[in-house]
């Protein structure tokens, strides 16, 4: 009780200066992240920026005496909803990016004008509303937040609460119906798969990515016998790394002389290198 009496706002145990500083930091961060959301091209980056905005808002809820909403924001929004977004981005393709070409002429200009007009109207509305200082906070904005919320939800708002339950069930069923794919052809059996593989003329699985002396990663393509790289060995989700230095062969019978002065390996000039038609000329002497 003593702490409650000392702090001007129960539930926010920071003093006024700290709260103002925190607000401005969070506000700038949230607006910057929101702007980045509409400016970055890739959907994944957009989702990350949205996470930043949501975390900023969660902190602001906590600062405003809404600890329950702050945690719901983090758990439900940043945790569940944003993960759902990321799942769908992964399904649709992580590299899906907007094209920068305008399909409707003057769309961005008109959107900017509409946004400015909308912003001015809203700000004027707020300016006319004469929003005063906050009311004296009660215990409902501090330790009693959860009790107060649950009392309201289960008394005044019990009917909307029930309707919300119905909405959630409907949404779950609707999502299942929409995401369900009707099987138009019978499921291929193991025999069908084997036949298909034989017919395709590609019996073995795709080649594994390349393993080199210096690099062993999934984005390094495997070398084919003729010295070129195999595109099938790298997943299409990855960007293929150039195979450069590690491409030189060291054969068991090759005599490698190590020069005493520099410590570098000097390949014996008598042995011809592997056939390497695609390699640029500069790489042959490396």
């Amino acid at each position, binding site marked *: 009780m003593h702490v409650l009496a000392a702090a001007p706002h129960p539930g926010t145990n920071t003093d006024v200066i700290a709260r103002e500083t925190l607000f401005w930091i969070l506000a700038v961060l949230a607006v910057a992240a929101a702007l980045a959301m*509409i400016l970055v091209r890739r*959907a994944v980056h957009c989702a990350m920026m949205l996470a930043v905005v949501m975390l900023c808002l969660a902190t602001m809820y906590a600062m*405003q005496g809404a600890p329950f*909403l702050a945690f719901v924001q983090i758990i439900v929004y940043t945790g569940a909803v944003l993960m759902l*977004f990321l799942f769908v981005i992964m399904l649709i393709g992580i590299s899906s990016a907007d094209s920068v070409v305008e399909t409707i002429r003057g769309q961005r200009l008109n959107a900017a004008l509409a946004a400015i007009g909308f912003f001015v109207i809203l700000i004027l509305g707020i300016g006319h509303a004469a929003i005063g*200082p906050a009311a004296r906070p009660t215990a409902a904005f501090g330790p009693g937040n959860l009790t107060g919320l649950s009392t309201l939800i289960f008394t005044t*708002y019990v009917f909307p609460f029930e309707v919300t339950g119905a909405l959630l069930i409907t949404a779950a069923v609707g999502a299942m119906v*929409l995401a369900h794919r009707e099987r138009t052809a019978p499921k291929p059996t193991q025999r069908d798969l084997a036949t298909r593989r034989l017919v395709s003329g590609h019996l073995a699985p795709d080649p594994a990515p390349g393993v080199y002396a210096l690099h062993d990663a999934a984005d390094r393509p495997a070398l084919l016998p003729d010295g070129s790289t195999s595109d099938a060995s790298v997943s299409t989700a990855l960007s293929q790394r150039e195979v450069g230095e590690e491409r030189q062969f060291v054969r068991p019978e090759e005599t490698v002389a190590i020069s005493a002065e520099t410590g570098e390996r000097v390949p014996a000039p008598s042995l011809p290198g592997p056939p390497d038609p695609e390699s640029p000329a500069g790489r042959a002497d490396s």
Partner: protein
Amino acid sequence: MSPVHYVALSVILFVIGAVGVLVRRNAIVVFMCIELMLNACNLAFVAFARLHGNLDGQVIAFFVMVVAAAEVVVGLAILMAIYRARRSASVDDANLLKW
């Protein structure tokens, strides 16, 4: 910190979200901008709850969160169906309500 600052911030975030909905053409990004607008509304609700000193605003914000979650689930399912049919997540390509 006066609640008017929070309300002004929520206005800014809402307008940014609206611009995103108007400008972006990737349907997932459009959805995320809608989420941003809903979040901005929630911030205003919480600020008004504190302004008036009762919890009704927070309850409404809670309901908004629930409705937003339901909307995201259905919306992303529709998006998946469209992507399966058209191999594209751009809102320009989905110009027919049927495949």
